[in-house]
């Protein structure tokens, strides 16, 4: 089964290149990186990279699809079992934290990417907005949350988180925005949207 072996090897090389590209993008930025930087980091020739991804855009799209998919899946796993808003916010941040350098690049650069990669960005947001909207609906219904349209509750939250990530060099030069500010952002967002302060005080 020569063909199968060759196909397997090709698949493994491709996956290794995607992994390297993910790491280089995380570190130096997506649009800033050339195909030759990835070849060099992976220890292969330019030709090898081009054999797997014909253009820079195809490579970027594939990396964003692969790792965006992983982020979305992880977010879905973490947020799926959350009952309350505070839990879902923490789960959202826990998911981001596992991919923070790359996620931050997407926050900054997603608008510049090709439509296919930009669509992945929306899918990543959908993986959290799906669970967020369900929980928000319940919390508004039960009077625990102020009654704003779901998308505004969501956008106020992601706007806050993404602002800190986009400007991470100013907020956390050491490179760990979520670790340093995550809890503070959750606590204060909850203060903004909660209605029943006395109950919250008793619950600690």
């Amino acid at each position, binding site marked *: 089964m020569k063909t199968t072996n060759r196909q397997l090897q090709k698949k493994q090389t491709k996956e290794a290149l995607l992994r390297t590209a993910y790491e280089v993008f995380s570190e130096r930025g997506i649009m800033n990186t050339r195909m030759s930087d990835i070849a060099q980091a992976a220890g292969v020739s330019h030709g090898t990279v081009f054999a797997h991804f014909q253009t820079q855009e195809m490579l970027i799209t594939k990396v964003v699809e692969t790792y965006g998919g992983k982020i979305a899946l992880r977010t879905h796993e973490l947020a799926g079992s959350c009952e309350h808003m505070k839990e879902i916010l923490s789960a959202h941040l826990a998911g981001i934290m596992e991919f923070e350098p790359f996620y931050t690049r997407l926050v900054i650069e997603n608008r510049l990417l090709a439509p296919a990669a930009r669509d992945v960005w*929306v899918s990543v947001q959908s993986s959290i907005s799906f669970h967020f909207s369900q929980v928000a609906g319940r919390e508004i219904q039960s009077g625990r949350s102020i009654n704003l349209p779901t998308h505004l509750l969501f956008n106020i939250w992601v706007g806050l988180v993404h602002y800190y990530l986009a400007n991470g060099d100013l907020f956390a030069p050491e490179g760990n925005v979520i670790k340093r500010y995550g809890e503070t952002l959750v606590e204060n967002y909850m203060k903004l949207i909660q209605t029943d302060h006395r109950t919250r005080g008793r619950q600690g």
Partner: protein
Amino acid sequence: MKTCISCGMPMTKPSDYPLADESKDYCIYCARPDGSMQSYPEKLEGTTEFLIRTQGLDKEAAHQIAIRTLSKLPAWKGKENNIE
């Protein structure tokens, strides 16, 4: 782990399936109340509505994203032709 052929959602527990039927290849959110799978027009409208309701996107922008995103899923391959 199966993922829904119609929307891509991972299906990990019985309640993710229509009528808890784990033999199905599509999820509860892609099913009609009787358990059958929603048609393409139904799913396209539902996805567009979801993006507007949960993320506040512009109606036309949401519609285009929904078309492109669904076209990548096994149930709807080739459905994007009308936007090329």
